[in-house]
């Protein structure tokens, strides 16, 4: 079988060459960044250089970046560390949904947060809250009106957190333009290594450490720094920032995928179609075919895609994101295609052909000549 067509970048992205080089180079650094000798100082320099790159990717100051073991820890740190009740939509990542106080804020049929509902909830809340709004959804790619949500939150004295894990490197992320207090980032979604992420916490906002111990990360996150992974994160952030001009090409490939699938089946729903979306993501339904059947079919065809998010156990459950968007039974029939910078037009063609084959097989009839092309 030819090489696997990897269209699951929102689960994890391949390591970029630059990130790999920086990671491997930093693996040879022997020092602990907190040690004062030359080896320790070399490790410290690697960490601080990466901190500058990560800060620059989102327009923040290096001192505002706190490295963590990943976005799950980053989200948990913000939600627990702000010390306020948390308001968020039902389409957020599990690591945010798990920290919610009270019922989730509803979203519209395109997956966008209901701003007037948010406004009312904040007005009714007795205490200053923390509003958490993801910049782009991991399953649908739908971009949330974060700046608008932040403006509403400000009026009620709330702090604002934005999970920018999926948006970083795929959209311009400007922390100040979004006007948020906390951003979370993950290295492995932008082509960096797994095992590292960051909270970007605006200077002066509360952030109690979740993992406690030594005084690393200005006492905001204890534990010896994961120097090599942090160096890889920095290199990936630099590479992602340099790539900003090529996102149009990615979007064209993604649109080609959607058009190809629609040519095979004009009734296939594209979730979040009416909203602004990430240029690399398409969450597409195959009417009448369970997502699990589709994913297995794509796997056999050598195409790696996901249904829902990859976080839990590998079971394909109906997507909570589509459920919150009111998809009903169709929530169990959608598969996510997420492209990356190395995706080619050939691979998109293979994916379209596989879609038609999977649909034909599942629906118990042979693919027509047009669909199998």
């Amino acid at each position, binding site marked *: 079988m030819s090489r696997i067509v990897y269209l699951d970048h929102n*689960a994890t992205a391949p*390591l970029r060459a630059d990130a790999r080089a920086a990671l491997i180079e930093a693996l040879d650094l022997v020092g602990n960044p907190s040690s004062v000798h030359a080896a320790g100082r070399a490790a410290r320099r690697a960490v601080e250089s990466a901190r500058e790159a990560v800060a620059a990717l989102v327009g923040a100051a290096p001192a505002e970046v706190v490295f963590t073991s990943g976005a799950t820890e980053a989200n948990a740190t913000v939600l627990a560390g702000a010390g306020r009740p948390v308001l968020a939509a039902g389409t957020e990542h599990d*690591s945010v949904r798990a920290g919610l106080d009270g019922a989730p804020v509803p979203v519209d049929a395109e997956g966008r947060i209901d701003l007037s509902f948010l406004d009312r909830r904040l007005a009714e809340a007795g205490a200053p809250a923390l509003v958490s709004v993801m910049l782009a959804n991991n399953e649908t790619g739908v971009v949330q009106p974060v700046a608008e949500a932040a403006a509403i939150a400000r009026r009620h004295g709330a702090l604002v957190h934005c999970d920018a894990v999926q948006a970083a490197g795929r959209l311009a992320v400007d922390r100040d333009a979004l006007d948020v207090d906390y951003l979370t980032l993950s290295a492995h979604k932008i082509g960096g290594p797994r095992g590292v992420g960051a909270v970007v916490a605006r200077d002066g906002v509360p952030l109690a450490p979740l993992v406690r*111990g030594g005084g690393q990360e200005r006492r905001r996150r204890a534990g010896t720094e994961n120097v090599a992974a942090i160096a890889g994160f920095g290199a990936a952030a630099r590479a992602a920032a340099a790539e900003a001009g090529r996102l149009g090409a990615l979007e064209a490939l993604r649109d080609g995928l959607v058009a190809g699938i629609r040519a095979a089946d004009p009734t296939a729903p594209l979730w979040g179609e009416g909203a602004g979306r990430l240029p690399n993501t398409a969450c597409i339904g195959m009417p009448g075919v369970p997502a699990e059947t589709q994913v297995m079919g794509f*796997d056999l065809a050598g195409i790696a895609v996901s249904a829902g998010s990859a976080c839990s156990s590998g079971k394909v459950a109906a997507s909570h994101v589509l459920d919150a968007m009111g998809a009903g039974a169709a929530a169990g029939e959608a598969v996510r295609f997420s492209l990356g910078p190395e995706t080619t037009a050939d691979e998109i063609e293979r994916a379209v052909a596989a879609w038609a084959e999977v649909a034909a097989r599942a629906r118990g009839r042979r693919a027509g000549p047009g669909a199998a092309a």
Partner: protein
Amino acid sequence: MTPERVGNQHAAVPPGEDAPIYLDHQATTPLDPRVAEAMAPWQGVPANPHARHHALGRAAARAVEEARGRIAAAIGGHAREIVLTSGATEADNLAIRGLVPGPDGRDTVVTVATEHAAVLAAARAVEAAGGRCVIVGVDGAGRVDLDALAAAVDRRTALVSVMMANNEIGTLQPLDAVARIARSAGARVHTDAAQALGRVALDVGRLDVDLVSLSAHKAYGPAGIGALWVRSRPPTGLRALMVGGGQQDGRRPGTVPTALAVGFGRAAEIAAAEREDEARRLAGLDARFLDALRSKVEDVHVIGPELERLPGCVNLAFPDVEAEDLLDAVPGLALSSGAACATGAPGPSPVLEAIGVPPMLARCSIRIGAGRGTTAEDMDAAAAALAAAVDTLRRGRAA
């Protein structure tokens, strides 16, 4: 792409004649080339081990399971008992804050004054959350005061946390006696074994503990990964520290970093296989170093236990020679004056304070931490360099 393309701002200490002798293995250890080799195939693979519905994800899941098996085997446990964390600090936090208060209403953690900052901070977090934290003292060699421990442990005690080997002074704690005291009150036992892996016999089949914290980068594995071993029977009722996607049976959410896990697995395997020989070799190096030093310098104070100690960890002081001045005077040696994670914190080391080292002497304390790459020649050179520097500094004072 070659590393040169990214620039050399991250350059390691260049190898060659002038490379300093690395004697700070308690702070962190160099990555063993065998570990780097095991990790290499996984560095670039876009495989989320939780994406089990496609081939790449399944391959990553298998690699992580294998790594878990190797880590468990290194300490005599089972793969399913290994919770992978971002390091020993998180493992300590998970163990203590995940078990105190206990499901049966027990609200107290009992620990020791010389524990790692992660254990002490987690214990204080328990207290801040409304529980109780009792800190027991140690003797002059850093061993826990067992009478005080027995007096402190009672029916309110959910967990007793005592480290296996101290990172600053190399004390090995009497864990069997600690466990007996804890069990007599029905409490659980946790041990931070970050420094012990690969240097001290560590077998959970024989050691009566429920939880063990491990770190990869203290055992020639990569930084950024550690583990909490959690005895499966009887179940501990451990609560997760963070919430998220339900990975690792909900005990520790977050995508497991495949390459780091594989590296940890290989590092643990090597650490266990080579432990006996390596521990003997390191103990020999320590003795050789002290003999050489004492033949050249008068008045060398060894801090911590003389016998039954962590091999490859000598804490010593030259009275009247401040550590800061001494470290500046030996640029050819990479060593520390205390725990790396406390660097920048004002005041003397809490560990030295706890064992009763006077503040004047504590300021003179340095740690010689030998490891896998350290040779007898390195130790001789270190002894000679320190002796010469001490001599110069003492003469300067006398002049």
